[in-house]
């Protein structure tokens, strides 16, 4: 049970990072990014390539994953200037699927050796400092790494959203006209928000790859994007604590089947579907009755 709790906490922490990063993009900047999972995917694959193929250290994988995902964020931010928000959202969804299809089809990347790649996925991804711990204690060590990353991410985002930089992001959320009239180069700010948020998503990706020590393209389906969206809108968009609370709640539902199956006499398949029904209905209810989410955006008060 305690093992399971460690697992759940690690996953919640990783999704918490994803949620914070989407919150920066959607909650603060108003960018409806429907391709968020691409950051997760790129982070995981880049990190795996750097550690497994290049034989680099874990930290290189983390940084590489962040850079790759950040670059992708920069790339998809380019058309925001000329596209309506909903068109852009659809385009990001398609872009993320292309990234996934790339890793699904290009199995040569991992060569013929023990790592298969493609639809078979890649196993045996090294876990950092694994030899120092026993199999039972390792998750707790990894949990510490995840918590460290989460805390760093949280404070970075909090700092940024409270800075003059974040102020411009918040102004852009309600349209470009005003920030433009005030001389702000909105496309540059959007690029930064996408690249920075992307890098955070990449961090989550490499964390998940080295934790599972196995990845395949099916772990990065579009649904992951919407699970993260559920976290942001349920927790409260534009509020970093809200994003984390949302991550906890949704992750709880998402993983609940694993322990509910012992108590509720329903087929595991059905239960797995029902938890997604719950998440879907939760999104609709929040949108209908609590647009601000559980935790409202905090008003920024300046002391005179």
């Amino acid at each position, binding site marked *: 049970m305690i093992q399971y709790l460690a697992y759940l906490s690690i996953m919640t922490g990783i999704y918490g990072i994803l949620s914070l990063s989407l919150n920066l993009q959607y909650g603060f900047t108003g960018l409806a990014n429907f391709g968020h999972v691409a950051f997760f995917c790129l982070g995981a694959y880049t990190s795996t390539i750097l550690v497994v193929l290049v034989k680099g250290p874990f930290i290189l994988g983390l940084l590489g994953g962040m850079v790759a995902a950040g670059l992708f964020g920069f790339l998809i931010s380019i058309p925001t200037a000329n596209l309506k928000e909903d*068109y852009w959202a659809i385009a990001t969804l398609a872009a993320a699927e292309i990234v996934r*299809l790339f890793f699904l089809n290009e199995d040569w990347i991992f060569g013929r050796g023990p790592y298969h790649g493609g639809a078979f996925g890649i196993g045996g991804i090294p876990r950092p400092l694994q030899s120092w711990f026993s199999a039972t204690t390792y998750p707790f060590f990894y949990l510490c790494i995840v918590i460290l990353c989460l805390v760093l991410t949280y404070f970075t985002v909090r700092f940024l959203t409270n800075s003059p930089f974040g102020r411009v992001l918040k102004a852009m959320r309600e349209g470009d006209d005003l920030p433009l009239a005030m001389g702000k180069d909105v496309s540059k700010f959007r690029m930064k928000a996408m690249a920075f948020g992307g890098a955070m998503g990449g961090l989550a990706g490499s964390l998940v790859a080295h934790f599972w020590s196995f990845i395949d393209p099916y772990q990065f389906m579009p649904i992951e994007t*919407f699970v993260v969206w559920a976290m942001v809108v349920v927790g409260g968009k534009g509020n970093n604590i809200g994003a984390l609370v949302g991550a906890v709640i949704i992750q709880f539902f998402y993983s609940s089947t694993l322990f509910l199956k012992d108590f509720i006499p329903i087929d595991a*398949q059905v239960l797995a579907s*029902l938890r*997604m029904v719950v998440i*879907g*209905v939760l999104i609709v209810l929040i*949108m209908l009755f609590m*647009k601000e989410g559980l935790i409202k955006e905090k008003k920024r008060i300046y002391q005179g």
Partner: protein
Amino acid sequence: MPVFQVIINSIIRASELSLIAIGLTLVYDLLKFANFAHTEYAVVGVYLALVFNVNLGLNIFTSVLLSAIFTGLIALSIDRMVFRRMRDSGRVILMVTSFGLGLAMRNTIRAIWGPTPRSYTIALQKPISFLGIRITPVQIWIIATAVIFMVAFHLLLHKTKLGKAMRASSDNPALAQASGIATEGVILWVWFIATSFAAVGGILIALETYLLPHMGFAIIIPVFCATILGGIGNPYGAMLGALALGFAENFGLYLNFGNIINLGGLFDFVKEMHIPTGYRDAISFGILIAILLTKPSGILGRKS
């Protein structure tokens, strides 16, 4: 594979997609949001037809008609519970809501019917061969049904009072309302038509392959692609977009791009160059992104 076969396959794919795309474009235009639950209505129709056909033993034609009607009615009740309360919400909010709704619908279906593929009870399909093409009777029915529904739609749009009101409301909702057209009534009719067409389109796909709970989500990007390709709000554009996409998907895999690069044999740069089958889906994703980047109003543009 003979080129005629590729043409036939393209037309079949286009027939299936176009009925779904027509509905998406109508709702998108009238209610101003990208309905991510649209293809899930198709799946609802698909499984309702299964109930009528397999459980109640009705023949497939009756099942299709009943299922289309019931899907339309379900859409109306969902509109009443959800979208009607959100008529003046922003595009992103509505998109996210529709996504949550779609998630709930898809997984409800999965919870009820399970994830395994199913099929309707129809006569065993003996392919007919001519000119080196093989086509099954069901495939002929698919094309015929699509044509019948498209013609019916055309007549509805131009020969009925409802069609006139629909066109007026989508051109200028405020003006339409001012001139005494009951916009809310039109919205209900559009929901009904859009989703019952989607149901029929979904059943056509299921007839050719099989029934799967996630078949709706699998075609969401192709349907969006066809819709945007044809220009949002233009049902004829949606049909044309579906046709173009059907051809692009099939010929994209069929063509030897090596020939094109070698300028039809003038040079010998590369031997053979095909788009790998694994990238079949990426064709629609790529077209979607390309059209959004270059001409977001679609090939036919918005309605004239």
